[in-house]
């Protein structure tokens, strides 16, 4: 099976044809050879397949909100070819058996490469290390470990975890939230929380943990990845750490690049997320930090929740919003159209760099001949009002429904297989049999 993408705009600015055969990019440039299938990509930007380092697929245990299959479809619809499935499932992904099961179900779904994230501590309990070595050496080859949803709060446990994980070449992705400073906290602490009478989540609870962790990482000589950085102060700490030569990487979510705590004013729990939406000053600092490389990657923190669970008061509703389908549009809106990032930069922060942090092979030189054919074709000139139908997972808890967003994923190609054609998801049987 050969596939010819004709006339795509490359991120560098030139136009080229891309020939794919047997899941590998064979030619880039002016292609004269014939192909079984031809895709007209004139006017479309060819990005490398996107890699999400932070995805909640909810399976096992939370299948009413999302499954590995439904989340994989949402990912493909958003232009992704690899996702990292967070460990906070039920049961928790803290054993080799569980992470191998996640890989198997991801392969069976066939839309993206599903890479399990292993828990740092058993049951996300924060005290005993999970089966880190077993997960790293299993067939799932886990490289990223995270208690996401919970912070590894105890300094000694974090020190041991950093040391132990580095033994296997992995990285800890820390959800930076000092537990004692954020008891019952439900939104950013500041002018808006004071007025709304909602319990505040102070920025210092994130910044203090990041400061502690970069120093621990330096001390023990380990890699550290900071999940969903949300404040200007956190950016300053990460910038300082990088300048000092500490092996730290950081991510920001699309929603933290666009929305602020003003969204909480009508108490609509669709905007309730952890870490909370901050202020416009924080949004500006986060955008600049992506532009100057302090923040390495965009990660979605795709967090599906059923409609019923979000149909409640702000306090009772769970934290989280879906983000796989809208990620690229929000990045275009908040970073590309504001001049913070080129499309080349988008390829870096949404594909090359996250793959590097997760040690995912095949993404280091985007769209290079000989690489696996993971490609996303997007139409940046498209603009549409988002509806629930724009969301392809099982849950629709997106804050962007009803909002006009730029950009559209026209095609996604995963290891040479088309998972999205003409903006439509390919049916599961077709993907499976490809």
């Amino acid at each position, binding site marked *: 099976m050969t596939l010819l993408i004709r006339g795509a705009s490359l991120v560098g600015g030139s136009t080229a044809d891309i020939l794919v055969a047997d899941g590998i990019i064979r030619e880039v440039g002016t292609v004269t050879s014939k192909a079984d299938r031809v895709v007209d990509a004139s006017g479309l930007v060819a990005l490398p397949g996107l890699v999400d380092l932070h995805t909640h697929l909810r399976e096992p245990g939370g299948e009413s909100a999302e499954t590995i299959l439904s989340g994989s479809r949402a990912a493909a619809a958003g232009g992704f070819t690899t996702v990292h499935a967070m460990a906070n499932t039920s049961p928790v992904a803290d054993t080799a058996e569980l992470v191998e099961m996640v890989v198997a179900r991801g392969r069976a779904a066939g839309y993206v490469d599903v890479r399990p994230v292993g828990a740092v501590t058993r049951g996300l309990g924060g005290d005993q290390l999970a089966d880190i070595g077993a997960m790293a050496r299993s067939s799932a080859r886990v490289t990223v470990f995270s208690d996401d949803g919970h912070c590894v709060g105890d300094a000694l446990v974090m020190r041991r975890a950093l040391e132990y994980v580095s033994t296997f070449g992995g990285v800890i992705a820390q959800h930076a939230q000092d537990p004692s400073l954020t008891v019952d906290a439900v939104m950013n602490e500041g002018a808006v929380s004071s007025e709304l*009478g909602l319990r505040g989540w102070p920025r210092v609870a994130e910044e203090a943990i990041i400061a502690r962790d970069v120093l621990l990482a330096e001390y023990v000589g380990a890699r550290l990845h900071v999940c969903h950085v949300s404040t200007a102060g956190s950016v300053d700490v990460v910038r300082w750490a990088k300048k000092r030569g500490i092996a730290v990487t950081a991510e920001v979510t699309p929603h933290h690049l666009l929305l602020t705590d003003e969204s909480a004013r009508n108490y609509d729990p669709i905007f309730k997320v952890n870490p909370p939406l901050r202020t416009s000053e924080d949004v500006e600092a986060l955008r600049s930090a992506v532009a100057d490389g302090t923040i390495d990657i965009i990660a979605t923190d795709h967090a599906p929740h059923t409609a*019923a669970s979000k149909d409640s*008061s702000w306090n*009772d509703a769970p934290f989280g919003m879906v983000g796989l389908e809208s990620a690229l549009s929000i990045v275009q809106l908040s970073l590309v159209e504001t001049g913070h990032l080129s499309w080349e930069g988008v390829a870096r922060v949404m594909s090359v760099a996250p793959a590097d942090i997760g040690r995912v092979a095949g993404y280091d030189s985007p769209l290079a001949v000989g690489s696996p054919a993971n490609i996303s074709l997007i139409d940046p000139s498209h603009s549409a009002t988002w509806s629930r139908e724009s969301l392809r997972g099982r849950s629709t808890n997106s804050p962007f429904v009803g909002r006009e967003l730029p950009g559209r994923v026209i095609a996604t190609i995963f290891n040479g297989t088309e998972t999205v054609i003409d903006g439509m998801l390919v049916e599961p049987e077709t993907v499976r049999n490809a």
Partner: protein
Amino acid sequence: MRHLISTRDLSHSEAVGLLDTTIDMVDVRSRDIKKLPTLRGKTVANVFFEDSTRTRLSFEAAALGLGADVMTFTSQGSSVSKGESLKDTLQTLEAMGAEFIVLRHSNSGVASTVTNSGWVDSHIINAGDGTHEHPTQALLDAFTMRSRLLGEDARGRDLDGFSVVIVGDILHSRVTRSNVWLLRTLGAAVTLAAPKTLLPRDIDDWGVSLVSTLDDAIDQKPDVVMTLRVQKERMSSGFFPSESEFSSVWGMNVSRLRRLAPTAIVMHPGPMNRGLEISGEVADSPQSTVTEQVANGVAARMALLYTLRGESR
């Protein structure tokens, strides 16, 4: 005005209008037959997800005073923990005929969530939501201030030129938030006195003055000192070290009362911790308005129901 969620939503004329209607309701309640037929055939549902017998009885008396039928739903704790959602509870009550829903909940913002959701068509009255607002308390407080400070001349007037001190646990106080917005609309100057631990952050745009101690506030010769109930569990959570320290710095006692003008009043939304935020002698003094506030509460809630009933659903 279809709902009352926050005193922020009240214009100056709506606020003064509600206070004036409250005068009429006080009149009604002083008559031999203490009822109006305004809401005859209508149903008011008191929906209390958080226990508050006083507020519930006050709303019940107000609804009965206007001839309405009253349904009461009470459930401790959050609705979700009971297995039935807020949405289902409210839709059930409306299906049983409720046209006014008086909603009390321990979570901030529940009344807003309900009016924004479109779950029900009823008039919604926020009877206290978490640490957010308690707008009818602010209405009865403003009415009490206006009656005491302006007497017979109160009708049609606001509180321009008067100064109000609110002291104590500002952070967790829905009474404070509702009072601040309403008092500012009515032209009063507001000062908050509290330890930093019990003061919300970043409140520059509240338009109030801040002082540290009650003595600092009393030096300004306020017309009103509003004390707030202190939840005793705040002490164990480290907001202040001891009851005696709290009452020595922020408690209203006789020596502080003597430093106020003889016309000044001391208020408390109840229930009081005598000896903590307010001493027994102050609570029982002629300058205290504690029981008056309770009586005015029924009239103020009648005035609100009376005003809302004119608005189509």
